[in-house]
């Protein structure tokens, strides 16, 4: 770990040598390791130490940026020079509102010494237990267990200095057995919040129960979605339309719908980067404190999230949701909520299943892609445990189906919300989500293997 004081010293040096009108530095450091297993044995086992410094400079209303992972003063000076040279080449951007001013940022605890001290041997033993469990049941386990420390510092020449250090532990497994499969995943910043063995057991159990799946016809069915599938729904709603840029450009599911009920009153979604129940990060990549933003309240879209530029366009303040701005391709996405929560309900999974006469129980979605942005229409496959529900009980496993479904209309059909929530993070950010019972979900295909 570099630590706050060493980082502060480095960044102050950068501000002293920068000839730009304004300068912003984002420093990301991590020391992480990942143990990967498949066929009940460890096959890949890796570790990485890296620090990346992103420089953004402002000359008038021109912005340039450069990124380096070299920590020498010379490399930092070169990055600043390059960024300034790039800024000077550009025409003025009349919309650029300037770098943000400092605001108080309350620190959030998200660092666990037990995660920071996790060894390769600890990871090997933890995944080894899952492999042995799968093997003893005639199944094959694959997956990954990762542990790591990260530091993020954002500072600018207007006086912003924000620093956060955290830990993360992630575990994922897919267990396979006779055309059946099961899945488990969790993310946490505290080691005690993640029970690898118990997750492994649930995946093995699901794999055994989903063996020899029966064929099923595509159609419209009621569905009970485990939180893994709900994670996909929330992540896409966030990525494809809950940022202010998407709304300003007219390509969001929120367009013309803010303040109007479009989902079930049981649906409330918010973004909160400060809640320690998730994987907190108390400020964004411009050093602005993250606000809790209610995106959908009891089925009614309320507000997208903002960074400084989209906020200035509407005469508002940033809600602290800027992505890293030094990479043009990331910056072009605009602000995006990456700490998403869905309000829990009161039902257990068993109670939801009991409410279904004929329908499907789905573990997770796979390879989902946006078909159309306005209703947030996605296509994807089910994976790792799909079951037919008959008269309120799980009857038998069925084969995987392809769906093509608007996630917004799907959330208009919520009949029950689970009371337990899981913290899931398989990409950038996380979701904290319950299970859902939906009245109708559209499946458009099935998988069949043709002969030779």
């Amino acid at each position, binding site marked *: 770990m570099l630590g706050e004081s060493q980082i502060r010293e480095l960044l102050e040096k950068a501000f002293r040598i920068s000839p730009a009108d304004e300068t912003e530095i984002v420093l990301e450091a991590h020391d992480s390791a*990942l*143990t*990967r*297993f*498949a*066929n*009940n*044995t*460890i096959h*890949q*086992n*890796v570790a*990485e*130490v*890296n620090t990346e410094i992103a420089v953004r400079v402002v000359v008038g209303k021109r*912005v*340039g*940026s*450069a*990124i*380096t*992972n*070299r*920590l020498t003063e010379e*490399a930092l000076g070169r990055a600043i020079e390059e960024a300034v*040279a*790039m800024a000077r080449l*550009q*025409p003025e*951007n009349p919309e650029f509102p300037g770098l943000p001013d400092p605001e108080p940022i309350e620190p959030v605890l998200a660092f666990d010494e037990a995660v920071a001290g996790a060894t*390769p*041997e600890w990871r*090997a*033993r933890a*995944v080894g237990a899952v492999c042995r469990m799968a093997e003893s049941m005639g199944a094959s386990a*694959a*997956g*990954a267990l*990762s542990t790591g420390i990260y530091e993020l510092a954002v500072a600018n020449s207007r006086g912003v200095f924000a620093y956060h250090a955290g830990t993360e532990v992630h575990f*994922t*497994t897919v267990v396979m057995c006779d055309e059946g499969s099961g899945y488990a995943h969790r993310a946490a910043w505290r080691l005690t919040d993640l029970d690898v063995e118990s997750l492994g057991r649930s995946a093995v159990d699901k794999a055994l129960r989903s063996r020899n799946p029966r064929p099923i016809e595509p159609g419209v069915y009621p569905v009970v979605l485990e939180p893994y599938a709900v994670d996909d729904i929330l992540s896409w709603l966030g990525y494809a339309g809950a940022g202010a840029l998407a709304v300003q450009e007219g*390509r969001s599911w929120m367009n013309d719908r803010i303040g109007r009920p479009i989902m079930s009153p049981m649906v409330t979604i918010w973004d909160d980067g400060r809640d320690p129940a998730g994987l907190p990060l108390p400020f964004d990549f411009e050093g602005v404190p993250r606000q809790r933003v209610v995106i959908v309240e009891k089925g009614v879209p309320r507000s997208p999230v903002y960074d400084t530029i989209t906020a200035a366009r509407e005469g508002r303040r940033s809600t602290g949701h800027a992505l890293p701005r*030094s*990479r*043009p*391709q990331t910056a*072009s996405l605009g602000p995006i909520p990456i700490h998403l929560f869905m309000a829990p309900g009161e039902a257990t999974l068993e109670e939801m299943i009991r409410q279904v006469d004929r329908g499907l129980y789905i573990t997770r979605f796979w*390879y989902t*892609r946006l*078909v*159309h942005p306005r209703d947030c*229409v996605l*296509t994807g*496959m089910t*994976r790792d445990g799909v079951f037919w529900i008959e008269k309120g009980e799980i009857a038998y496993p069925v084969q995987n189906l*392809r769906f*093509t479904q608007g996630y917004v209309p799907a959330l208009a059909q919520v009949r029950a919300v689970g009371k337990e929530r899981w913290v899931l993070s398989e990409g950038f950010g996380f979701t904290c989500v319950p299970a859902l019972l939906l009245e109708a979900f559209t499946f458009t295909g099935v*998988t069949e293997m*043709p002969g*030779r």
Partner: protein
Amino acid sequence: MKELLERALNAAQLKGASYADVRLVHRIEQSLLVRNGVVQGISQIEDMGFGVRVIADGAWGFASSARLTVEEAERIAGRAVQIAKASALFKKEDVDIGPPVVQRGTYRTPVQIDPFTVPLEKKLEVLMAADAAMRAVKGIAATEAEMVFLRERKIFASTEGSWIEQEIIESGCGIEALAVGPDEVQRRSYPNSVGCHQMTRGWEFIEECDLPGHAPRIAEEAVALLTADPCPDTVTTVILGGSQVALQIHESCGHPIELDRVFGTEAAYAGTSFLTPEKLGTFRYGSEVVNITADATLPGGLGTFGWDDEGVPAQRVDIVKEGLFVGYMTSRETARQLLKLLGPSPYVTGLSNGTMRASGWNRIPLIRMTNVNLLPGTWRLEDLIADTEEGIFMDTNRSWSIDDKRLNFQFGCEIAWEIKGGKLTRMLKNPIYTGITPEFWRSCDAVCNADHWVIWGTPNCGKGQPSQLAHTGHGAAPARFRNVRVFSRK
């Protein structure tokens, strides 16, 4: 740097590694993005570090660092060995990478104009001109124009005696126009969608793409799509444009022939494969006009290099020959596993065909597509359309989804035209087609000729944990498929 690499290899051996390799990678990436007439950003990214991969106690370990000192090299080599020994706690058998591979040499992407010597002003000028040409079309709500340039220098050294130095140069560009109507959003892209079209070529590639020249057409098509009829829900003949054929190859052929996926080592993330080993040499993957190669020697392809990241020379390999499935992409380890499983045959040599690549110094090499190509057929596109009584021509990918075994796919395109009586007629919006991989390729009855053949670049192929983005190439020409289920978004 030589000392750093040698110290890493020595330290790994002293700590107990039976094999070690080290890769030192220095990468410079330059990106320019213009959005709605405003320079969204110009950035230059410098990334440098080294990774040490070892076998110790018969198991793999890997560690990497951006701190370039000999002390760190020794520490990281020790960490890699410690990790390998932890892996060995639960190994089933020792890793076997076959006979030693000893290679020495250099490779540099041949370019006419080094893109890093072209002034940024010139690059911006092209982007601003293309962006302005799109915005000049009434009804356009947002525009984007971008360029990416990459220079990667890397040194590979191994305890077997290899020492390889390579310099890979890439250039990429693309434009997008977004039109928004009361209930409809339509996007058109050029030359390809989802970011850039990219090749291992120089600035000459950007000039050939002529972004400003294509910008008005792209913008006009985006606006026209707002009021176009939706693609009908039917089963019909489909002709796919070259870039969509490239994506179809990538998803439904390129991924299932990765032998690590076949052996289950990507099961928890990227998935497995329907092309299981007993199908090698016996399975009819496509019709007789379907010939597919994996070719890392193809000039300009995004998957073109001198040696892979295990030090194995670049090769051209048959994957599908006249419709028959005949080859996988392999690594040193998986090639041995296949030999043990199937025994030697014309399709099984036990030697790697050189497809292991890492996305950077901090990642291990995985089997990645090189340039996986559908070889050209005999048709001119205009003749193929004239030969089609009824059908739909679809172009430029908009969405892609395929199951974990790479069988059930559904792809959406940005634009389509109805074919009636051998002619392109009305424009259709929101076209989607779906199918099962071998059924689809068996229904292919025509591939266009070399005049229509382009090596499309896919610079965003995800695989592995921690995740890696690979740059892959796909030579493809428009092709015709019969009895395809098509529909519009619901």
